[in-house]
């Protein structure tokens, strides 16, 4: 059965990505981030989200894409998955679209250097637009962080 679902569209290094809307708590403008020592590089630190301290991850860095300075368009997407609440720093986020499971294909092995396991699929929509859907539980996989910590990364 084909099912409709909504995704939040955001960009990262000129590519479009999507996260299912029910995993997204809110989208925030860039706020000052407090660095947390002894964490992996991609963990930028923590922010004050209306009284709650939330860790933020630079998604570019998480996917080993070249890092860039935050701009006017930079956003922090707060996602909640597996009881974790984490913010993703992305280049921009400005769209919500409807997708249908029929439009989603399995991810090809390599996309722009991002490991396939971080992706749950690729959606084709509109006039030749491609949208990369994130596999949140892999992106937020903590065992990988622990490994990284052990290697001193």
């Amino acid at each position, binding site marked *: 059965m084909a099912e409709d679902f909504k995704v939040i569209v955001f960009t990262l290094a000129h590519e479009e990505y999507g996260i299912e809307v029910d995993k997204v708590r809110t989208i925030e403008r860039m706020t000052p981030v407090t660095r*947390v020592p002894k964490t992996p590089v991609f963990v930028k630190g923590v922010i004050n989200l209306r*009284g709650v301290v939330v860790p933020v991850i630079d998604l570019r860095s998480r996917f080993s894409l070249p890092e860039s300075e935050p701009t006017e368009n930079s956003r922090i997407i707060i996602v909640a998955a597996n009881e974790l*609440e984490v913010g993703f720093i992305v280049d921009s986020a400005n769209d919500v679209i409807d997708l249908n499971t029929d439009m989603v294909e399995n991810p090809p092995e390599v996309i722009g250097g991002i490991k396939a396991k971080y992706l749950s699929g690729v959606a084709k929509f509109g006039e030749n637009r491609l949208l990369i859907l994130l596999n949140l539980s892999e992106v937020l996989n*903590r065992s990988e962080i622990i490994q990284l910590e052990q290697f001193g990364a």
Partner: protein
Amino acid sequence: MEMNQYLSIFIDEANEHLQSLNENMLRLEQQPEDISIVQVIFRSAHTLKGMSASMGFEDLASLTHEMENVLDLVRNDKLKMNGHIFDTLFKCLDSLEGMVQDIVGGGTGSADVKELVAQLKQIVKGEPAAPAAAAGQAAAAGGTSELAMVATHLLLDQFQLSVLRQSIENGSPAFHIEVTIREDCLLKGVRAYMVFDALERNGELVKSHPSVQDIEQEQFGHQFSVYYISRIPQKELQDALDKISELESVRIVPLDLESLSELDESRSAEQQIQEAVQQAAATAAAPSPAASADAPARAPAAAPVANKTIRVDIERLDSLMNLFSELLIDRVRLEQLASEVRRNDLTETVEHMARVSSDLQNIVLKLRMVPVDSVFNRFPRMVRDLAKSLGKKLDLVITGAETELDRTVIDEIGDPLVHLIRNSVDHGIETIEGRREAGKAETGVVNLRAFHSGNHVFIEIEDDGRGINQPKVLDIAVKKGIVSPDEAKKLSDDEINMLLFAPGFSTADKISDISGRGVGLDVVKSKIESLGGVVSVTSKAGQGSKWSIQLPLTLSIITAMLVKLGSEKFAVPLTSIVETGIVQRSAIRDLHGAKVIEYRKSIIPVLSLAAVLDSPDYSEENELETEMLVIRKGEKLAAVLVDELIGQSEIVLKTLGKYLTNLDVISGATILGDGQVALIVDPNALIK
């Protein structure tokens, strides 16, 4: 009925009753002759039954019902408590507790209680001589009146008595009717219903034993009795009842004023109260005028419980706390702004607001304080069971149970205490023979104490057992590689004792049911440290050991020193700061590769906070003099170098969430007046 809204009340009350049952059972075990304790137990069990039945928890209700039957015999002197009955009843309590826990966890509270019910039934049946003897006694006491026999188990309350008396005075006959159903009757409930039906058509039921509800559920033997006001003469009544088949006998005894006053005298004040509670709890199911008597009769019984408190959902308290912490952050911000703006009336208003909010803070914190009793109260039972299974004799003496601690600490402290008490009972206290040989009393004593001291609460567990076998501890520590043989020689007694808290340490020769469950004292230690507490142990060989836990009063708001490292701010809890000061670069010396300074005639290590936290834009290397914090962990001191001291501030603790865990030096975060997040440094992690 909408059950959810009653569920939490039910759970709270059920837990209270279970606690009271446990406590009173333990008391009764000490004083088995004291029937007043049995009365209290009976009342608790009865209320629990009523509550469970009305909430639809059938297994709970049926188990308590059977317990009640046993207790009923005991309180009426028809059954003597003995070890077997105690054990069975304790098992029942465990089972009830399990069911309530299941309900807490969202379950249906069902459990297999068949075996326990069967055991209880056996206890009830297993004393065939007792009821007869009791009846004989009663008959002797009550003289010739046939009523005396039933009086012991069919007591009327004041209201019911006066109803009967009035009707006799008005000329309508009152009877006591005893109906026995034939043993081979298949549907005794139906027969009983027919009897009640016939009775209700011809008059009014005052009281029945067992209750109408129980009879309808077939929860009775083959006999029941009622007090009854009839509109027809005895002869007609007898005929009407005789028409019902499968009845063994129907005995109708007319009541007169004399026999009523006899009944009245045989009631003790205690039984009145108990009767009232019983009635109230049995709900309004009984279609007798007794129901209306509940309200006035219940008041005296309920009085001691009705103190001026309300139950508050802990979540509401938490959100109050959260809102309050927001306010605190704003207050700090306002204070900052006021000091910049320098307008007198603004400063005054802000100062006033600061005072009010700090009063408010005290009250909010106090709201969250719970007596440690809520944790301690489970230990008497635990120690009893432990002592029994180990074949030891021991007393648990609890003092300071009224000492209050923050709810969050209370929730966490239970497991470590269980562990330490088990440890004392299992390893500390000797066996009965062991104690005799050592020239001690057979009964060991474990003291559990709680008390306030300054900004801390102390909990101590002291036993008069054999103490810590230090040579053995050292031996094991060396074998397990926790310390090297050379180090071992230098250790002081206290340091040897602390080895017990090392990971993977166990002195138990064999793994018993009680200890050696794979959870070591290291878990206890880390749990207590995670609560911001300290645990230590002192011991005298042959005389016992004392475990001492020091806990902060609250976990949510602490006073901290804010420090700066370049552009970054950090908070260090004030409790572990001994002193602040300035240290000259030249005063820092190298000692065997480590940096140290002289501090009050002793040499203490120097740490660079910037280096520990990988500060991106600060290093004290180039400075001639640096500000420092002297911090303490237990007996150890260390100097921590920082860029700048900002000042002392009340901060609200926030966690870093589940994503960032196991951060070594950072214990949490807080939000500063300017909305920025500052990390909280864990001083305990700085001193290794």
